[in-house]
């Protein structure tokens, strides 16, 4: 089980690092928004993996709130970016 912890931790760490790199480098604001969505998903998965490894369910409310509020950032940025008038 300890090997699984290290493997899963390394994989999620790489995913989070890739997201951060894309947030820093990403040429457009949409790339940054996509990467930050991905970072949030990775965070949810890491919290879930922590619950499996530590054997508790205390962070389920945190996961619910994250899954609920993740959509607002994307919608706000997308509406800010897109041109409304084809001109």
């Amino acid at each position, binding site marked *: *089980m300890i090997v*699984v912890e290290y*493997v*899963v931790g390394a*994989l*999620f760490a*790489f*995913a*989070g*690092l*890739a*997201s951060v*790199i*894309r947030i820093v480098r990403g040429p*457009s604001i*949409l*790339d940054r*928004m*996509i*990467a930050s*969505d*991905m970072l949030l*998903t*990775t965070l*949810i*998965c890491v919290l*879930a*993996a922590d*619950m*499996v490894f530590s*054997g508790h*369910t205390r962070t*389920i*409310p945190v*996961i*619910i709130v994250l*899954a*609920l509020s*993740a*959509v607002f*950032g*994307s*919608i706000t*940025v*997308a*509406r800010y*970016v*897109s*041109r409304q008038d*084809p001109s």
Partner: protein
Amino acid sequence: MIPQSVYDIASSVLLIAGALLSLAAGIGLLRFPDALSRMHAATKPQIFGLILVLAAIALDQHTVGTIASLLVVLVFQMLTAPISAHMIGRAGYRNGDLRRDQLVVDELDEAVARAAGELAETVESDDADIDVTDLPVGSADALAVEMDRVEGVGDHSTADGDGPVERDSEGLPRQAGDDRRGGSDGL
């Protein structure tokens, strides 16, 4: 009764699968060339990876309350992830944040061109006879028609040719030098 070690192994496998999906999404996020294909990579673990990881929790701690809470998480994520992906994809397409040389087919382009053509036709045909009473009061269209009318009063030579007939009954100033109008006035 299934021993706990079986649950542990199953949840470990599910966790590793979810983590591999996140890894693939991370690689895609780094390597893919434009925003739309990056979004394609990044939205895979948003639903499927989450399903795998939540199933791992459900196998590890299989009580009814925990599984119900995880179902709530999953339902909310499945409701909101398509919305945000749709908004981001639409914004990306409208801003030209995609590489067209990598597209096999662009069905939206045809639809946009067709809509633009229809819009141009509508503008051409309706330009001649806009009735102000049909437009919403204070709207931009009504204001534009009003501006046309006011400008037409000052410009005597062109005001009468392109306007609707109702302008006569509104008591606009008529010019003696206007030959077309002058003929009807004399009778």
